[in-house]
């Protein structure tokens, strides 16, 4: 079940968008959607803050009355860092301010069915990928962490696995191979014998090294160079909607 919300002060526009989304989803099997519409940023924020609602994808109009889309997005990010925000705007000139919240895409008005459909599918893909979990056991405790929070996984002496997430670090007994099987190959890439990285947290890739957003540097083994390059290229293309 994917939860989507639309925030736009023009009712006509939000209904149109809702219809396009439902039609697009209907073309494919096993996509279940739940769509909510908010007429102002204020009402959306209220619902989110009250923790009554949680959404995975948001279609957000930038040009709104009292609280414009960019401000709304900023407030949302304080509550939910992972929501996929898709800006809907009439103007194709962008400012740094709007990029601060790491929007998923920009869509220009007037909206076209084909474009919405494409962006929606990419967004759903992303949501699904991010909803995967990594399961492991340490001593007596069972853990389940969301793979979208994992930055890197490294193996020590082939038996001990160290997992670094955005908030924490874990260590447990296991092999890299077992872990590999649990992870989405489009987001996670093996860079050398004992290290798997999450492409979402890659800052830059040079020919021989990868630097993550937490400034950690990992060397890419010779044998993996081409694989890493191909995976990263595909990741970039997906990330910017190519």
């Amino acid at each position, binding site marked *: 079940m994917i939860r989507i919300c639309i925030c736009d002060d023009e009712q006509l526009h939000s209904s149109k968008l809702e219809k396009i989304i439902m039609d697009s989803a209907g073309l494919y099997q096993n996509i279940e959607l739940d769509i909510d519409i908010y007429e102002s940023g204020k009402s959306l924020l209220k619902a989110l803050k009250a923790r009554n609602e949680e959404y995975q994808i948001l279609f957000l109009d930038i040009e709104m009355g009292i609280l414009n889309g960019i401000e709304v997005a900023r407030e949302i990010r304080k509550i939910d860092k992972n929501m996929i925000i898709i800006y809907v705007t009439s103007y194709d000139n962008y400012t740094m301010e709007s990029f601060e919240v790491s929007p998923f895409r920009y869509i220009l008005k007037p909206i076209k069915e084909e474009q919405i459909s494409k962006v929606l599918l990419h967004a759903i893909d992303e949501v699904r990928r991010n909803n995967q979990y990594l399961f492991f056991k340490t001593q007596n405790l069972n853990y389940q962490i969301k793979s979208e929070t994992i930055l890197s996984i490294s193996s020590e002496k082939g038996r001990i696995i160290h997992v670094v997430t955005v908030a924490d670090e874990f260590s447990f007994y296991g092999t890299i191979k077992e872990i590999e099987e649990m992870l989405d190959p489009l987001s996670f890439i093996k860079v050398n014998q004992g290290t798997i990285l999450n492409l979402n947290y890659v800052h830059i890739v040079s020919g021989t090294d990868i630097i993550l957003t937490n400034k950690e540097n990992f060397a890419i083994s010779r044998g993996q160079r081409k694989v890493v390059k191909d995976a990263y290229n595909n990741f970039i293309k997906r990330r*910017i909607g190519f």
Partner: protein
Amino acid sequence: MRNFEVMSIAVLAILYTLVQVTSISIYFNGFLNLRISKYKFYSLTFLAMGVIKLLSSDTNSMVKLFLFVVLLSICILYSFYGSMAQRIYHIIFFTLITTLADLALSIITYNYDQKFEGQLFIMLVVYFSANFLSLLIVMLSAKLLLYFRSDNEVGLSNKECLLLSIVPCLSLLSIYWIFQYKDINQFVPCIFLLIVNVCIMLIYNSLEGKNFLIHKYSIMETQNKYYEESLENQREMSKLKHDLKNILLNIAYGLERKKTDEVKEELQELLKTNVFSYRLLTGCIPIDAILNSKLEQTKKYNIECTLDLQVPQDLFIEHTIDLAAILGNLLDNAVEAVLRLTEEIKKEITINIKFSEDKLFIIIVNSSNHVNMDFSYGRLISEKGKNRYGIGISSINERVKKLKGYSDFSYDEGYFSSIVVLPIP
């Protein structure tokens, strides 16, 4: 016994020829670029080296050497790109290493000849082992020399090549002179000659490196100047646009005061500049400057250009010239590739520039003829001509490296893709 001997000789000869072909391949593919298919090259070389084996062992060693050089030359001149002087230098140098290695080992096995006289089989094994060993030495030396080689494509001038060729050439002739002497009188001069020639090769590598640097910096100079001018133009244009409001007010005021002549003059002045052909694309100056100029080109050549731009107009870029140069080179490559299209393929270029997560992503895809993406020798062979090896791409890579970014180029089913990611701190 007879048949067994003949068979074993034949098998050993074939094995030896294969190893010889491998050593030739390692050396020449490391220094030069192949222009026929790998398999054609292997077969040709195998044939040539095989022919030499068929000569009887009684033939004069000078004749054998001469034939070796001639057959090797035919193979190399046919199979590889490069100037004549450069290829001849490598042919002579390779012959020299091979001869020296052979000689060194023959001195060692000389004594065995007499010891095992009569026992043909053992002699054969010793003989071929010595030969295999000598080829091993050749391959190792080749690998060692290639290790010190700078990775570039400019090479040496013909004059430099010919001058350097003199040393291995005379060394080869000296070796045959040395043949007259025995044992240590043979051995020591050979070692000296080997050292001299290795030094020459190291000088060759160093010269190659220097030539490339000169070439690269002269190109970068030119590029920098061009992009600096381009950016200056763009800055002037945007300033003008900004001033436009005031200019228009002036004109309106002039018309109000019925100063038509003055107004006419001002309009003339305005129309001389290209302010009306400037298209606001992203609002980001280095990107717009290059895009505007290249888009004019694509319009001229009827190339279909699709733009997908999402860059904040208030994006602050520190290295404007590098960005302009990178984008400029990428687009130049794309346009040139499209213009080289042979068949009735659609001329199209897709330009995707997006800003996300503090990084600028540039993806350019263009329809293209088949591109040989064989990077196995560390060089991309340029389509522009057999002597210009992708200087545009290496310039892009240099600048991307300088900005600590990422770049990748690939060819897939009729389309060439260039991806560049630049961190914008």
